[in-house]
């Protein structure tokens, strides 16, 4: 390989590392993405133009067309699709990558004289095909599920066993081919089909909420497929890039499971036991969305206006000092923070005042209900801490509710609502709260003191 190309690949590899590194922090993520993209760009261009092969023009033209077509389509899809459809898009693209790897494998299998080729090369080719196929069909399946076009969830009890037997079969076949140096396109297509089927079988039983984890896992697999192809061509940028994606992807997958309070095993194999959905979800009101301290922290960090709604739970948790710390921290970061004080928040008149005065919150940060209600429109994030009845829209909407007619804080008008409480339990009035099921609301479960402390640490690390 030419030295120039080697150096280009080296540089591309380094951009991948830096890109990934920068993607890990909100402030640098954008530039990280661009750096990696640039590296990818030079790697592609270098590959096309720097070599000492005699390549007929037609091939260049074909490559050019392929790249042009792919670029345009990819670009259009990416910029047109709604934000909420992003995860399925990622899945789709990932499937394409897998397919590409599988196709390469197939071509190379055709090109090679299998019986004469070293076992390790054959193994590499077959691995690329199987893994590529799995990621392709698996990703498409995930895409379909997220998309809503695939709905079926298989409910055979011994499903996992069947599933695992199947993939073992595929691997055995591959080993057989490698060991025997068998050059049979029939078997090859059997392998390919096996990979494709397994991808579907693998993803099928997993619930929709777990899809992101699965996509991440499949993504990691695509990385491995790319790395294997890299070994095939002794191509370092593919090898290292693929491994980076593979290892980072696995770690990311685990992190996503942790963030969802699940284990990877329970996502993949527990698909049957965990169909009930998170506890405390009210059937008639729909489902709740829960969030984490780090997500909330980032949301607040990048917000312009934040309103904190304290309630009785703040007093129970004795979290007044921490909330003041949070407010100070946000203010220092240039966020406008205010407290919305509902007249009957807490359990005695002025409860919130006493509480917040104790932690020396400035009096002019506390805003009365009538004054703050018009401001919610203009608010990026409302953080409700241990309040419930005072933000319950039933007071407006439900004449049969015991709190009907009570004025409430109109937090629903703001862009995002984060509600911290320990559970889905009711407040003083003993009634459910529709707000928690609002599409804009994310629940941040936990004792207020603990949760706020976490928020503060997360914010400090930004």
């Amino acid at each position: 390989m030419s030295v120039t190309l080697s150096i280009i690949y080296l540089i591309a590899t380094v951009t991948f590392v830096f890109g990934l590194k920068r993607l890990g922090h909100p402030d640098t993520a954008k530039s990280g993405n661009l750096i990696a993209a640039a590296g990818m760009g030079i790697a592609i261009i270098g590959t096309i133009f720097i070599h000492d092969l005699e390549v007929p023009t037609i091939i260049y033209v074909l490559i050019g067309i392929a790249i042009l077509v792919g670029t345009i389509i990819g670009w259009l899809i990416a910029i047109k699709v709604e934000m909420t459809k992003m995860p399925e898009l990622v899945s789709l693209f990932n499937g394409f990558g897998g397919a590409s790897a599988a196709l390469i494998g197939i071509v190379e299998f055709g090109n090679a004289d299998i019986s004469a080729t070293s076992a390790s090369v054959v193994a590499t080719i077959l691995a690329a095909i199987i893994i590529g196929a799995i990621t392709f069909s698996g990703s498409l399946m995930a895409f379909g599920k997220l998309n809503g076009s695939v709905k079926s969830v298989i409910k055979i009890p011994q499903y996992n066993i069947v599933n695992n037997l199947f993939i073992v079969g595929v691997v055995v076949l591959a080993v057989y081919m490698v060991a025997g140096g068998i050059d049979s396109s029939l078997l090859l297509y059997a392998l390919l089909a096996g990979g494709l089927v397994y991808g579907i079988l693998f993803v099928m039983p997993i619930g929709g909420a777990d899809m992101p984890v699965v996509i991440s896992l499949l993504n990691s697999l695509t990385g491995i497929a790319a790395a294997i192809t890299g070994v095939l061509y002794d191509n370092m940028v593919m090898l290292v890039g693929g491994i980076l994606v593979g290892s980072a992807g696995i770690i990311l997958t685990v992190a996503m499971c942790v963030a969802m309070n699940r284990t990877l095993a329970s996502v993949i194999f527990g698909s049957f036991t965990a169909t009930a959905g998170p506890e405390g979800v009210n059937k008639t009101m729909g489902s709740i969305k829960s969030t984490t301290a780090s997500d909330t922290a980032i949301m607040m960090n990048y917000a312009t206006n934040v309103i904190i709604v304290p309630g009785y739970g703040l007093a129970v948790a004795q979290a007044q000092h921490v909330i003041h710390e949070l407010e100070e921290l946000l203010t220092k970061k240039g966020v406008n923070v205010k407290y919305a004080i509902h007249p009957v928040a807490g359990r005695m008149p002025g409860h919130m005042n006493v509480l917040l005065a104790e932690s020396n919150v400035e009096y002019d940060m506390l805003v009365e209900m009538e004054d703050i209600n018009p401001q919610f429109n203009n608010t990026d994030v409302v953080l409700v801490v241990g309040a419930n009845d005072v933000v319950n829209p039933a007071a407006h909407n439900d004449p049969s509710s015991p709190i009907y007619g009570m004025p409430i804080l109109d937090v629903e008008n703001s862009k995002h609502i984060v509600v911290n409480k320990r559970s889905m339990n009711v407040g003083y009035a003993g009634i459910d709260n529709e707000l928690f099921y609002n599409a804009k609301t994310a629940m941040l479960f936990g004792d207020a003191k603990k949760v706020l402390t976490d928020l503060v640490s997360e914010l400090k690390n930004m």
Partner: protein
Amino acid sequence: MENLIEFISSNLQIVYIIILATFVGVELIKSIPAVLHTPLMSGANALSGVVIVGAILVMLHSDPTDYLALSLGFVAVVLGILNVVGGFAVTNRMLEMFKKKK
């Protein structure tokens, strides 16, 4: 097992590279905020499109008359570049929310 050992001894440096790259990947991603999980997944996905390099190589090496290889290669390049371009573009859009204020 034997094969593995053979592979290791004949590709020792590759093995080191794989191990070290794995460490790098793990260390880089070890502790990132949950809100970045999706963009990061998306970015990593774009990177996995590096397989396009292989697809291009397939085409470059193809005999212009080997239509099967050529067309498979063509499809592979299209899919690969879709993965790359779409992946980076989507990631970029996702990251819009982290625009610096002030």
